[in-house]
């Protein structure tokens, strides 16, 4: 009897302890958030919500892949690399291992921001001239720069991540093998780029559906990419830069008239350096220095705009757009006069991002009319300039952050797919100037000037905003508009991202027309015309202006908000 009683007590204590152990961890966890479903109208502003971590990317499968990595205990860098690989499978037309990019990382435990530059380089044997009279690079193989994305992702993974290459490629392999339904965005871009894909990848490529573009709802699978990623996961990135894949890349490029050597791939190394810093009102901005122009010009624009009462003028108002556009015209002249690869030229970065220089520009801008002449710069949009590239934002539960912008340049890059590899090669060489006297002139091993501007913004020394965007030379203009929408116009994150955008520049001292999304009020457009601006109306939500992704950290509410651009297929996954 005593034994039975003792056993009963023992069992009861054991059950109690077990129950407590089971219940306790849950009671310690933050309350799960009830997240409303995204609205059926994809353009309606919607903030994704999280408390511990979040990934925002241009495809829902990629964002979810990154989130799963966070949930499995991976840090922000692990999740960023997972998402980047997953984007190669789910949004293959905008980024991937055939391209390159830039990332900015915040390491919470060290309170340090660092930049990893993995921009592509020109091959060593690049000819002096590759552009024809129409500004096109022919043959297409000459448009391929040395792919560098894999080197950049893996550099950051090894240095700051905690997971293996096998871990971070699993989801991408699964997506590539199982496939997914093609979206309206994918289908439309696939149709737009049909000629290039047909010419360079052929009728049998997985990037076409039995020789024709994919329709929305079609299943897109890429088993060859899955095999390539498995090979890289098992043999390491040397397989890509020195092994069988390297040989396939060189063969594919050179068969299409390019000049790439195995040595070009073997020599590629990403570089890490300190970020560029700017101050806007009470906020500190960290972004990337050259060879991207995005960071320099974003700070320059904010420095200029800080001098104007934009809040008083109001969003979408004609004075705001007029002044912003005039600033852009000065900035673009500077872009073509000073910016290029800092390994080869001296760039007056500090002068360009100084408040003093901003004031000089402000003093020249007229309040109600255009200037007769702007500083001389040769920049001009090319006929085939388009929205492209992709951006990823990640924050983990420890507060580590990554803001990554990467690209294969134009949608579907060159359309060249190395034999049986399933990935597209970039056409980043288009980012060089066709003017041999330009600071951005092409040359062996040079990195072409980019417009990317991944950023992390701090408010009182705490991370506040993570942001970045695709969109070619519109990137830094779009990012600046989003920052002003949030800080000056008090918009919520996604409201700021979805808000109508505009863009302009100057070329050879003359103002070019303002491109506006069609949602701007008629009255604003009329006033701008009366000021002397010529206007080009674009689609209501035009991916020409990019597809920005952002994360806003609300310290006081212990909330993380994600904003994903509906101009593309942006999605946020938080927990």
């Amino acid at each position, binding site marked *: 009897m005593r034994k039975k009683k003792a056993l009963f007590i023992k069992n009861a204590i054991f059950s109690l302890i077990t129950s407590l152990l089971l219940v306790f961890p849950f009671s310690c966890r933050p309350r799960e958030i009830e997240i409303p479903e995204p609205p059926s109208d994809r353009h309606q502003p919607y903030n994704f919500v999280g408390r511990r971590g979040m990934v925002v990317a241009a495809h829902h499968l990629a964002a979810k892949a990154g989130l799963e990595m966070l949930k499995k205990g991976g840090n922000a860098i692990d999740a960023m690399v997972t998402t980047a690989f997953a984007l190669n499978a789910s949004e293959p037309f905008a980024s991937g291992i055939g391209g390159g990019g830039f990332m900015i990382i915040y390491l919470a435990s060290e309170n340090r921001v660092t930049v990893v530059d993995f921009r592509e380089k020109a091959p060593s044997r690049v000819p002096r001239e590759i552009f024809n009279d129409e500004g096109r690079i022919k043959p297409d193989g000459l448009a391929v720069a040395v792919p560098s994305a894999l080197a950049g992702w893996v550099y950051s993974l090894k240095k700051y991540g905690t997971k293996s290459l096998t871990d971070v490629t699993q989801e991408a392999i699964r997506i590539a093998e199982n496939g997914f339904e093609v979206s309206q965005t994918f289908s*439309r871009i696939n149709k737009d780029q049909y000629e290039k894909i*047909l010419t360079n990848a052929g009728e049998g490529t997985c990037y076409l559906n039995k020789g*024709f573009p994919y329709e929305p709802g079609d299943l897109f699978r890429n088993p060859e990419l899955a095999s390539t990623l498995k090979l890289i996961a098992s043999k390491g990135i040397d397989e890509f830069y020195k092994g069988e894949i390297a040989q396939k890349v060189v063969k594919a490029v050179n068969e299409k008239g390019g000049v790439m050597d195995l040595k070009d791939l073997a020599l590629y190394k990403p570089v890490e350096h300190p970020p560029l810093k700017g101050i806007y009102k009470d906020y500190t901005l960290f972004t990337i220095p050259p060879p991207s122009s995005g960071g320099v010009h974003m700070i320059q624009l904010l420095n200029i705009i800080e001098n104007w009462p934009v809040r008083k003028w109001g969003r979408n108002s004609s004075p705001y757009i007029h002044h912003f556009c005039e600033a852009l015209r000065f900035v673009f002249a500077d872009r073509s006069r000073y910016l290029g690869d800092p390994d080869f030229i001296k760039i007056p970065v500090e002068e360009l991002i100084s408040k003093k220089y901003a004031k000089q520009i402000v003093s020249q801008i007229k309040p109600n009319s255009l200037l007769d002449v702007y500083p001389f710069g040769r920049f001009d949009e090319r*006929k*085939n300039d388009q929205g492209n590239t992709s951006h990823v934002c990640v924050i983990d539960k420890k507060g580590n952050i990554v803001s990554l912008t990467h690209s294969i340049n134009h949608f579907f890059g060159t359309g060249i797919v190395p034999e049986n590899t399933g990935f597209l090669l970039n056409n980043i060489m288009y980012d060089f100037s066709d003017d041999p006297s330009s600071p951005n002139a092409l040359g062996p091993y040079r990195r072409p000037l980019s417009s990317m501007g991944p950023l992390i913004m701090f408010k009182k020394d705490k991370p506040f905003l993570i942001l970045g965007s695709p969109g070619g030379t519109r990137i830094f203009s779009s990012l600046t508009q989003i920052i002003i929408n949030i800080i000056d116009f008090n918009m919520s994150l996604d409201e700021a991202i979805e808000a109508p955008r505009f863009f302009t520049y100057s070329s050879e001292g003359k103002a070019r027309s303002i491109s506006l999304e069609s949602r701007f009020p008629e009255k604003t457009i009329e006033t701008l015309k009366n000021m002397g601006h010529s206007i080009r109306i674009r689609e209501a939500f035009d991916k020409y202006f990019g597809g920005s992704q952002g994360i806003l950290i609300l310290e006081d509410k212990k909330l993380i908000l994600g904003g994903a651009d509906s101009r593309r297929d942006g999605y946020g996954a938080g927990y």
Partner: protein
Amino acid sequence: MKKITLAALILLVLLILVIFPQERKESSSPLFEQPLLITSAGQNAEILMASVLAKRAGLDSKLSKIATPKDLVNIKTIVLVLGASSKGLGAAGLDMTKEKERVNLLIEEAQKKTVPLLCLHLGGEARRGPLSDELISAFLPFAKMAIVVKSGNKDGFLSGICEKHDIALVEVEKTADVLTPLKDAFK
């Protein structure tokens, strides 16, 4: 008796209309002859899809993005791929006015030479909008037949024009499905 005959006649006519309306429009007998010239109205990317389809259908075709009346030598059919692409127009150095002028001249010459027009709309919903609709309204009425991807005709815009101008219309689900009706349309 007369009333019964009249009623029977009306019934017969109604029966024919009910049973054979599609057949009347979607005539399976060949309407066109080869060789054919493929061009677009609007410099869209679908012109290349038309070319791939023609190749797969074993048709003797020639593609010209900026075809002019000079290209009509020895041509027996024009295949006009409808839909405006701002990117395509820009790349070709054309605007809508110039593009409409080019296609107008081509059709005028084709009419003189009694070369029939087959219109395709392959871009679906994405290749609709003010510019595309302007071109469709301008040129589809000249067609003898139209083959369109269904999603581009959700609002009945293309079928409305076809009905009004008595143009045989074939709707297909996907671009690849154009192959059969295209093949059947040629001798």
